């Protein structure tokens, strides 16, 4: 099924600007690996950065062009041709796969309740936000989240349905924080999704709420 739910245009703008907290940037990059339409859109949005760049005042430099260094490095080897662009998407899209491996079967899931598992995805040292894989068994209701700051959810396997419709592989839920949604995993397939929140506190709250039915607190 083609991708039905895309990130909001403002999310793609922030992506092109390079201004997203890393957790959110990771979700958008994983969506882009699966969505040619949004890849093309981000390319266009990067042009806004180029246009604004040209209007920046010039700061004075204290040293000249590093010509000697450039030539010295030239002697070291051929030009660097890596862009960091995504190869064809595997089960887990690149570049997420670079962090957690390419297959779901290799993920070390932590069981946190009936039919619910999660796995935190490591981010960089200075990263803002938190990134988590969540796996829900058939028919399970996903834990409620989203009451502050920006959050993004990318469906990677199976599907879930909430008031916004059905979300399957590649779809992104980029919801206004006001919207209450109670996603329910597909009755046979369940689902795996990648959830980014821009604050760490949100994540703790999320886990606490997931644990609630177990502990009765």
């Amino acid at each position, binding site marked *: 099924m083609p991708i039905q739910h895309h990130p909001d245009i403002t999310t793609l703008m922030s992506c092109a600007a390079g201004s997203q907290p890393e957790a*959110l*940037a990771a979700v958008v990059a994983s969506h882009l690996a699966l969505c040619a339409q949004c890849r093309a859109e981000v390319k266009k949005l990067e042009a*806004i950065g*180029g*246009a*604004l760049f040209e209007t920046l005042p010039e700061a004075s430099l204290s040293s000249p062009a590093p010509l000697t260094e450039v030539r010295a490095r030239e002697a070291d080897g051929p030009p660097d*041709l890596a862009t960091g*662009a995504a190869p064809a998407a595997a089960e887990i899209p690149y570049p997420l796969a670079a962090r957690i491996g390419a297959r779901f079967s290799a993920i070390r899931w932590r069981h946190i309740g009936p039919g619910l598992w999660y796995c935190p995805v490591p*981010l960089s040292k200075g990263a803002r936000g938190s990134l988590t894989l969540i796996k829900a068994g058939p028919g399970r209701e996903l834990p409620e989240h989203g009451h502050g700051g920006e959050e993004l959810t990318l469906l990677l396997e199976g599907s879930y349905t909430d008031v916004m419709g059905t979300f399957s592989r590649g779809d992104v839920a980029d919801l206004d924080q006001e919207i209450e949604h109670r996603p329910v995993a597909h009755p046979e397939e369940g689902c795996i999704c990648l959830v980014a929140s821009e604050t760490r506190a949100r994540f703790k709250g999320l886990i606490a709420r997931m644990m609630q039915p177990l502990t009765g607190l």
Partner: protein
Amino acid sequence: MIPPIEALRQPPGTPTPAASAFMADLLERIAKNRDAEAFRKLFQAYAPRVKSYMLRQGADPGLAEELAQETLMTVWRKAVLYSGTKGSATTWIFTIARNLRIDRLRREMAWQPLPESAEEEASLDPAPDEVLAERQRRDRLREVLALLPDDQREVVTLSYVEGLSHSEIAGRLELPLGTVKSRMRLAYQKIREAVEELR
């Protein structure tokens, strides 16, 4: 001293500081011939702006200069990749500076790759006079950005030039997150209309 955002506002039709076609030509010379003279010219044209960008992103002057040097060094190393993008030289250099800033100033990973081949775009927009159309779009884009209402240009600038997330913009301007997003969305609609009507 960093000039205020208002300094970024320019009247429509202001000639581009970096004549795009010429810059693209310099990049091609670097890619094909490893032309050091072309690199020197490109450095003079862009390094001061990259430094200015890094200052706005919160780097101190020493680090901003270092990152400007590093950005242009990356341009030298990756110039071959530019040929495939068919985009603006400035936009390409912007993405290099952007990713370096995420890596070095944010200490986060840059998840967004540098633009690579133009394959996908070419199939979406197979205009025969592609290069001219592309240049017209860029000129129009600059005009529209300069003409945006202040509140919309402000959020777009804070996002692209100062590197603030939507929530950080909301905090800086003391506005609800929803208001920041709706201003961004309005700006996008104006930009899109203006650029699309040229097609």
